[in-house]
């Protein structure tokens, strides 16, 4: 079981964390919402919950709650540019179907 970051993603996360001035890592998660059932969440972490699972990738601490992990295990988080836009992208092997925009998915 693991969640990984690409090197680019890790260095961006480190930059954002240091700019923010606080936070212990990055939380990946899944919410049941959206047109295809599930949606990703991506948040800074200030506090850990008791059931949280922690991974480390390129020096960045990645936090996932066990319920979310079931849907995103094996995910590699990447940081890419698309035209003028830039941001993080979930490469999630569990996904069977995505909505047109890719913001929500089913497994």
């Amino acid at each position, binding site marked *: 079981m693991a969640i990984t970051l690409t090197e680019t993603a890790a260095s*961006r*996360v480190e*930059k*954002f964390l240091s*700019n*923010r001035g606080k936070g212990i890592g*990055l*939380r990946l*998660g899944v*919410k049941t*919402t*959206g*047109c295809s059932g599930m*949606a*990703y*969440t*991506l*948040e*800074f*972490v*200030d*506090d850990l919950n008791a059931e949280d699972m922690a991974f480390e990738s390129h020096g960045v601490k990645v936090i996932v709650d066990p319920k979310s992990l079931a849907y995103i295990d094996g995910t590699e988080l990447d940081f*890419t540019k*698309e*035209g*003028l*836009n*830039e*941001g*993080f*992208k*979930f490469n999630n092997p569990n996904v069977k179907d*995505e*909505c047109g*925009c*890719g*913001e*929500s998915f089913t497994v």
Partner: protein
Amino acid sequence: MALLQISEPGQSAAPHQHKLAVGIDLGTTNSLVATVRSGLSSVLIDDDGHALLPSVVRYLPDGDIDVGYSAQAAQSQDPANTIISAKRFMGRGLKDIDVSLQPYHFVDNNNEMLQIETRAGIKSPIEVSAEILKALKNRAEKSLGGELVGAVITVPAYFDDAQRQATKDAARLAGLNVLRLLNEPTAAAVAYGLDNAAEGTYVIYDLGGGTFDISVLKLSKGVFEVLATNGDSALGGDDFDRRIFCWILEQSKCKPVNAQDTRLLLTKAREAKEWLTDHASAQITSILSTGEVVNVSLSTKQFNELTQTLVAKTLAPTKKALRDASLDIEDIKGVVLVGGATRMPQIRLAVADFFKQSPLTNLDPDKIVALGAAIQANTLAGNKSGADLLLLDVIPLSLGLETMGGLVEKIIPRNATLPIARAQEFTTFKDGQTAMSIHVLQGERELVSDCRSLARFELRGIPPMVAGAARIRVTFTVDADGLLSVSAREIASNVEANIVVKPSYGLSEEQILAMLKSGFSAAEADKQARALAEAKVDAESLLEAIKNALQQDGHLLSLNEIKTIREKIDALQANIHAGAGDANSNAIIRATEALNAATENFAARRMDASVSRALAGKNLENLNL
């Protein structure tokens, strides 16, 4: 798939509900747009990699509109249809600007905001600014992949109501939802995170392409208050280029050059200026259209000597701003440099020397204002947790309304933090009064004639009642951008009237200061004037009541009693019309008291008469006692 940004803990947006918000620096020379992604504020670039968008709009012959670099390039060949520095005209009338210096065909608009005749028709500065905002909005939506929920747009601290309203109107025209207008120096302070810092006083030194602004900000309890502003609207980085340009001509002993060569040499001068920021000397070489060859070398030392007077010119307004804020250099906790021209080492040295501390320079001085605005926009759009305080501004002059006797009743005091809403109840002055005129005023003085009139409107349809029985609630609301709306409502009948105050002309900083000063220096005279006016209002309202009472119930009095009352009435009226004088208010008060005393019995008898009238023909059981 869609690209995601990192949110604050617990603030992840649902799919398709990302609250995209931007900060816009709508500048005189250049404009920028920035946003916060994954907690980091960054400026958005266009397809060609430019962060800056020249604030230039050109109306093309084919009906298209060009904004930015391409419009700027056409400036000299199509000056009448290429509008630069529209910001200088925002909320201004023709009499506010020097028309002779402008290449445009201005349209006189009966003292309203000026307009410019272009081949695309008559355009107001608001429409021109809207084109710049539209270009930035498109850039942002393309970059962020979605519609914006709103924008924070920055304005100079000295912008008055009319200029702020014009900026808001431009945004509306561009289809932008304005979350808030933010003062430029405040935005710069936010970009450096000074709003999170301890309390203190900061100076923002902003030397742009063509303007110089100095602002003194005081931060207390998360609120930035502008203590003083000053500057020079005709001093900027371009003047440094011009100094180098003149020096080149002198050195190469050129004859006066044509427009094309002037442009060429000014570009070379600017390049040399920028080069000298990190180098000891710059080589300037060029071949003019006449075939003459320019080849000179400019050292940092020479450049400093050439521009010494320009640097000194920024320090005079700086001193003045400190003096206006009654502060010494030791009181200043930090100095922020804004504007590309502050990259020049001699500016940094001069500022450090003057304030006896190194200024904050680690952010790009061209981008600071937009970066700060984006941080504020991100907070206002609700992307941060509630613990983060919202930045507030204060109201510069008290707002109030006219009451009987030409007095000003202050509803919102000066220095109240925005946004704010305050209500006060007023009543009618005459029996059967069905309308009330509401006169909105701004200023610190007690008399209407000494304050600035902002707006007038009427509340009609008040049900007829005896004087003093109607309850009219007047509410003043000033939104976060400093714009005022006033509403009046009669409580029993719910009739309502309201107005949004949109003055065609605002106040300049000097006018505000002058009004504040006169408020202090005229305090004693104001107090007397207020006392006199109040005494007159009381007296007249008593006279009115007694006149009505005599008409209705005069039969309750003996001829002798009526005579006494008439005498007192005459005496009071004589005092009211005696004209202004210090002792006069006391005389009126005494005469009013005398009349009051003389009619005490009459009042008691009227009360008895009305009670017996009410009880006549009724059984005790029918009365709800």
